[in-house]
């Protein structure tokens, strides 16, 4: 699976799930705590269903109405690749800003 058209929200969801399985509301709270963004339920479930279709996350058995999701191995791999690439870009960008400054 290759991530195409990745939005920031997908990265936020995957990054949140990297610390362990979570259901919808726990995801919203966790994402808010580390990024400051509050995802709406429609946005969150749009991301979850897309990532689920791509096989990057999977639903776990829950109490019916609240099902937790977890990262799959493919999802963890894709998240790692994406973050490493972002980190390289960020490092280069910050270095250059430092040089200019």
């Amino acid at each position: 699976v290759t991530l195409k058209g990745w939005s920031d929200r997908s990265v936020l969801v995957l990054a949140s799930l990297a610390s362990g399985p979570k259901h919808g509301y726990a995801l919203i709270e966790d994402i808010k705590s580390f990024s400051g963004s509050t995802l709406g339920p429609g946005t969150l479930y749009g991301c979850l269903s897309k990532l689920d279709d791509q096989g990057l996350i999977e639903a776990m058995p829950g109490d019916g109405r609240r099902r937790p999701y977890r990262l799959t191995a493919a999802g963890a791999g894709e998240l790692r690749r994406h973050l490493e690439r972002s980190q390289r870009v960020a490092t280069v960008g910050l270095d250059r800003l430092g040089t200019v400054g």
Partner: protein
Amino acid sequence: VRRLVGLIIRLYPPAWRERYGAELDALVDDVVSQRTLHSFRLVLDLLFGVVRERLRHHPGPPAQVGGPPVFGPDFFPYRDRLYRRVVGKIPSQLLNGETALGALLVLTRFPRLRLFIKSQAIGLAGWQSGNVAFYLQQRDSFAFHIAFAGSWPWIAALLGVVAGGWLFLWLSGSHRRILVISPSGVTLIAVDWLGRPKSVTDRLPPLQPQILRRTRRWDHVRLGTSTFWTSGGEERTVLSWMQALGQPPPGALHITN
């Protein structure tokens, strides 16, 4: 607000709602009770979600190659076909009539035009409204899927066109203001709201309901045509899906009345 949000969730595509609807509903309960989001933002977020999911292509389950052919006449009882024909025909005929009437109202503004030309133009307009829908249905393209895969985008487009035309007449001071309400649009919404007969899908093996779920509303698109009135839009659509999924087209697909 909770009631409104519940209604918005019902606008999600049925297949999506079946999978995620209960979870989304529970999450909305949490968000509302904890006051995580402003109500206005919550409603907007869900409305955007509906549009996004309606426009998104939902891949089906993996093909079950080698399954028995199932699309025989037994799976489409006559009462279902009759129902589909009726609910498909009513809005289509109304739309044809509306288009013709719209042409009449516009042409009355040109008193010097000959009556024969007017009558031909009116007939052509009504006939072409059916033809356009028919050819759109035949074009099984990406754009077609985007526009017609769900019935709500189709209804929205129809209402935009028809109501827009009538609005123009209304604003121009026509005494036929009552016609601002599009009969075909209202009928389509009513049909969509009431839903489809379930007896067809209930009889089908696992893969076929997935296919039919995407095709069951196609009667809406078959406007004013009689070529494919045997089993709704399903005949061609099911063939396309079966081929796309790697299954040979079932031999018993063609149904006649």
